């Protein structure tokens, strides 16, 4: 497949923004209006920040904690959590995009020619367009691009 797992490094919790993923209970900060039954509510800044931090080279333990916090936050707020995220990769060539899996918390970088496992390929060109902060991929193939301000593009 040709993808290379990026080395991870442990980072300290971001005390400035208070966006460090909470363990267990997962403090729900900045809760946004949520559309009941559909994960279409605006993603609050702490959530956006946490997703961005998944790609910040976290240590394995921190990565798992962030993923757990995200899963819990999504489930509490929207009733469901995505399988993972596809986002543009800023490592530069040959990598174009990366996949952040919440289940098992995989972080993989992909070159344009590398195939991504299903159901993530549908999100790749959206992520590579650079217009979205990240693209959420749900079980069943639902793809929800999220803009930098947290707005979700309705399916």
């Amino acid at each position, binding site marked *: 497949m040709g993808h290379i797992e990026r080395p991870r490094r442990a980072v300290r919790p971001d005390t400035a923004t208070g966006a460090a993923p909470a363990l267990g209970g997962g403090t729900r900060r900045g809760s946004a209006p949520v559309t009941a039954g559909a994960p279409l509510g605006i993603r609050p800044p702490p959530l956006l920040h946490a997703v961005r931090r998944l790609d910040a080279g976290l240590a394995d333990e921190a990565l798992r904690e962030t993923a757990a916090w995200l899963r819990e936050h999504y489930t509490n707020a929207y009733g469901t959590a995505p399988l993972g995220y596809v986002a543009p990769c800023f490592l530069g060539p040959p990598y174009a995009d990366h996949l952040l899996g919440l289940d098992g918390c995989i972080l993989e970088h992909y070159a*344009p*020619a590398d195939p991504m496992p299903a159901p993530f*390929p*549908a999100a*790749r*060109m*959206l992520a*590579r*367009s650079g*217009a979205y902060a990240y693209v959420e991929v749900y079980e069943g193939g639902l*793809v929800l*691009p999220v*803009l930098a301000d947290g*707005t979700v*593009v*309705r399916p």
Partner: protein
Amino acid sequence: MTEVDRQLHNKVDQVGNRVLRLTENLIAVSDQVSAVDTAQKQTQDSLLALVTEFRSFVRSAALTANLHSAETQILSVEERLEREYGHLKRVRRTAVGILQAFDVGLATQDTVQQISEELMIESPRYWLAPALVALAAWPRDDRALCDKAVEEAFRRSPERTSLLFALILRRQGRADGAVRWLRHYLRAQNPDALGREFAVILECIAQGAFGPAGRDLMKTTLAGWRETLMTDDEARQAQVRRWRAEIDGLRGPASAQFPRLSRCSPQWPVLDEVLRCAGAHQALLDTYAALPEPDTRLSDRLEDTVDDILDRLVGEYDSEELPYHRELALHRAVVAAGGDRDAAQRATEVGAASYEERSDYLSVQTTAALDPAAIGASAATQRLSVAACGPWIAEAHAGFSRDYRAKAPSEVELHIGDPAGVDAGGRKCRIPVWKGSFNTDVDAMERSLVSHWERRIEPFVQTLAYPLRNPLLLMAGVVVAILLVLSGASVGFAVLLALFVGGVWGVVVYQRWDAADTAQDDARELLHRHKREAVDQLRGSAAELADWQQRYRAADAVEGAARTFIASLATTTPAGAPFEGRVVTGSEGGTV
């Protein structure tokens, strides 16, 4: 030399000559077959060009015929409209005329009464005619007639009559009565099925025509409707679909600036489509950021403002006329599309809701924004409606952007080569179509393409070589045979004959070998030229792809500006703004 030997020699000679003639004949036949093949290819190419030209001619002729037919139909429908509903124009003109005549006191009550009664007789079933009788009875203080006429007008068209009297009372400065009629009108409305006259309400909002009391009433009522309808997912989706169709219609034209890519890349149709879609952002900005400014010379006289709105109310065609106007819109769309019926059909489908007899409040707002002329809305109303449609435009725009971005091909391939092969050295050189992907380095693609051709050029050229071995062996055999057979009789004669036969034969073989060698050189050169053209094609396609990517990125980057603009619609014109707009000063001098 014995007689037998001589005969044998003659026979061998004859056989040799026949073999030579046979070979020449075979070469001639091969040349002819090749010529026929070339001629057939040329004929096929010509035929293909002819078919393409013919199809283009047929299409152009069909478009012209459609255009002419649509123009004729427009005249015909207009004539039918004039014949069947033309008399209503007089009623419409008279309505505002009577009010203005009363204003300046230049018409006697008798004349007004006479004209209104004439119109009542001339215009059966039309709602405005009894309303005019009521108007004429009003200054005469003939309450009984006035009530009867209002009841008849109300029976014929409750909505329009309510609105008409609301506006007339407002015009006459009787705010309480106007608001009562307005409340009556609004309460009778079902926001899911508003009549076409509802556009007048939007117009009143834009013009601030009903004063503070009416404004508050409309604000409360319309905000309630909007809230109710917005919770209906289907109603919201319907508006989003209309805006999506509008944005789809803003896509740019197909590009003719990427000839190599369009010829060699199987992904070209998608690339072109995606680039066209990306161009819609700028078109959207150009269209809606530059909406015509509302007329800044709005009159401060209540009468003038209300008369403008009354003109719109009475000028709005009746439901009976709708089928004609729908037909007219289709024929006009055919003319606008240069005779393309499919394009016209698509265009009219986008605006079909504008010609519905009844539509929900959200649809009326969308129609006022998208097709103000269809419901007689002014530029001011259009601007306010576009602002009110902000959430749907945003959703439609976001969905549109997501869809074309997702459609962009992740891999752009190139297929270079002609599966029909290349005519070289009298034969068909079939080099398979080379396939490459821009996901790999362009230099690597070029190396692959060059190798693809070179691997096949030399083996093909070798097939054109003259097979020297057999003719030389045969020639040597014959010469040796001559020497062996005839040397017994006369060595000198045998040597001379062998030299003669060997010489002549050698010259013929040499000529053929030389001709084949030349053909090989020509074929080699031709195929290398094709190889260079293929490489040029690859480099050109790579350059065009880089150009395409640059244009696509530039066009796609405008999406942010378009999104900001759409979001700004809500902030520049907040929800309450239509009601906070200007309030016309009444004739009594106070702000009403």
